């Protein structure tokens, strides 16, 4: 019986490692082709490169536009992830602590944002009216608006589980409510804060739609959009396209590996809590 089970597990292991090839092979293609010569990478194949061309990377990074878009991505991601994290934590805190009827309605309106699609055409018009179209600030506020619902949602669930007596103790010790939040409560929310940051950084880094609709000038594009553009320009130079992709993917894979615990726990916390 136990022997049978071990053999079954062994076979299952084997099967899973074969299956995982399906996931790995497309990614390996990017890596392989990023170090090939132009001719070798013309058809994006799985053949090993005959010689390693690391100059593909220097060529990509020397491209001023790519270089700039890389930092645009960092700037946009960090700014919108931080802003949405701070605002959502504050909002979730009051809404979870003081659950009046009005506050519950506000919370449900926040949750609507998890479901409804963004009306991009109309949003363009609203941004035009606010004179925020084609600006960094406009893009950051847009990302923030899109991240707030989920971020409020995960903070809310977590804050419900932190004891309210902490607030009272802090207030009795003479804290104002702002100081009470930042000195006592916010440090306790660290796991959710990590989740929110990782998730929103990733989402912003990978976003393609905001630059497509709202940023006309390529000066302000993040890297994904710039890469798409790069692709149409160097369509036959797959080695360069792949090198650019790797430069783009590397930071998020690092964030993913380092923050995996928070990423996965955040996603499932949302799911389990319903």
């Amino acid at each position, binding site marked *: 019986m136990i022997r049978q089970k071990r053999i079954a*597990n062994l076979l*299952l292991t084997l*099967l*899973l*490692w074969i299956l*995982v090839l399906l996931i790995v092979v*497309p*990614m390996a*293609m990017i890596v392989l082709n990023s170090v090939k010569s132009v001719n070798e990478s013309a058809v*994006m194949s*799985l053949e090993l490169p005959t010689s390693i061309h690391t100059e593909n990377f220097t060529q990509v990074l020397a491209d001023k536009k790519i270089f700039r878009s890389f930092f645009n991505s960092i700037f946009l991601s960090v700014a919108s992830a931080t802003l*949405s994290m701070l*605002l959502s934590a*504050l*909002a979730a805190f*009051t809404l979870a*602590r*003081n659950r009046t009827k009005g506050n519950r309605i*506000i919370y*449900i*309106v*926040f*949750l*609507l*944002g998890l*479901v*409804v*699609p963004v*009306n*991009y*055409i109309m*949003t363009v*018009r*609203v*941004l035009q009216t606010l004179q925020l179209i084609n600006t960094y600030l406009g893009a950051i*506020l847009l990302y*923030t*608006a899109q991240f*707030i*619902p989920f971020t*409020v949602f995960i903070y809310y669930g977590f804050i419900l589980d932190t004891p309210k007596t902490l607030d009272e103790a802090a*207030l009795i010790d003479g804290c104002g409510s702002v100081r009470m939040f930042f000195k006592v409560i916010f440090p306790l929310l660290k796991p959710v804060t990590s989740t929110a940051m990782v998730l929103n950084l990733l989402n912003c880094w990978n976003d*393609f*739609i905001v630059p497509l*609709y709202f940023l006309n000038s390529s000066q302000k594009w993040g890297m*994904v959009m710039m*890469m798409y553009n790069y*692709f149409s320009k160097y369509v036959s130079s797959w080695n360069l*396209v792949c090198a650019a*992709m790797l430069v*783009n*993917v590397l930071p998020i*894979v690092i*964030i993913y590996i380092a923050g995996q615990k928070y*990423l*996965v726990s955040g996603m*499932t916390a949302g*799911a*389990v809590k*319903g």
Partner: protein
Amino acid sequence: MNYNKIYSKWFWVPAFAIFFILFLLPSILGVFFSFTNWNSMSESLKWVGLENYKKIFESGSSIRPFANTIFFAVMTSVLKGGFGLLLALALNRRVYGRNALRTLFFLPMVLSNVIVGLVFQQIYHPTTGVLNQFLNLLGMGSLAHGWIIEPGLVMWSCVAVEVWKASGFNMVIFLAGLQSVPTDLYEACDMDGGSAWQKFIKVTLPFIMPSVVINMLLNVISGLKVFDVIYTLTNGGPGKMSEVVEIVILNEFAIGNYGYGTAYSTLMFVVLIIISVSVIKRYAAIGGDSV
């Protein structure tokens, strides 16, 4: 203590203001603008009633994007859920390299859709693509196809990419759900001589029902909103065979038919609200936490 003073509304107002003005308000305004002739040509805005909606429902060309979007949402939901569940069941056992496998199966989820779309465009290439070359290598050259240029196949190929990308997400949620199954119930089932299938149906499934519901809801929502995977993979082609609603909206936006495009957005808005509210209501009725 005065709660309204301690937990001041100024804590939630900033988040709400940004969210409302840049997310919800456009959707609400969109409802009104979808009844107008708003476009880039004419200066004046005219109320046209249901004209835009009539155009959507009467023109034969808008059936395909809707059909494609629904096909995509349904097929990806079922397949992502199915593969996700199988992976979760397998990875819930003591297989070797379990954590590495979990990490790898989830990995595509963090990649940009643009990269995924562009790479699969190459993989699907009829002559030089890895997929057809692999089939030829196995001596199954007859199965080789023009995966994204044959009209009958293109939507399936799009579905396959999404399944490749997001099955890992379903897996992770199922894995979390599986932790809630008490192991002694399996032992009890063993005692009674239950088969593996019976164990799954009678023990596992009832406990992971919340995960099933949430996965399906999230899959359907994201499926109906699909845009960048298909946009970068096929750009709606060949012809308009793989156009989905969000691609139509972008195209209408690009040619300046704002009111008409907004009518599409408004339809999606209504459909998604109806689906979500009904699922959440039923889910709450089964006994899950209501939101």
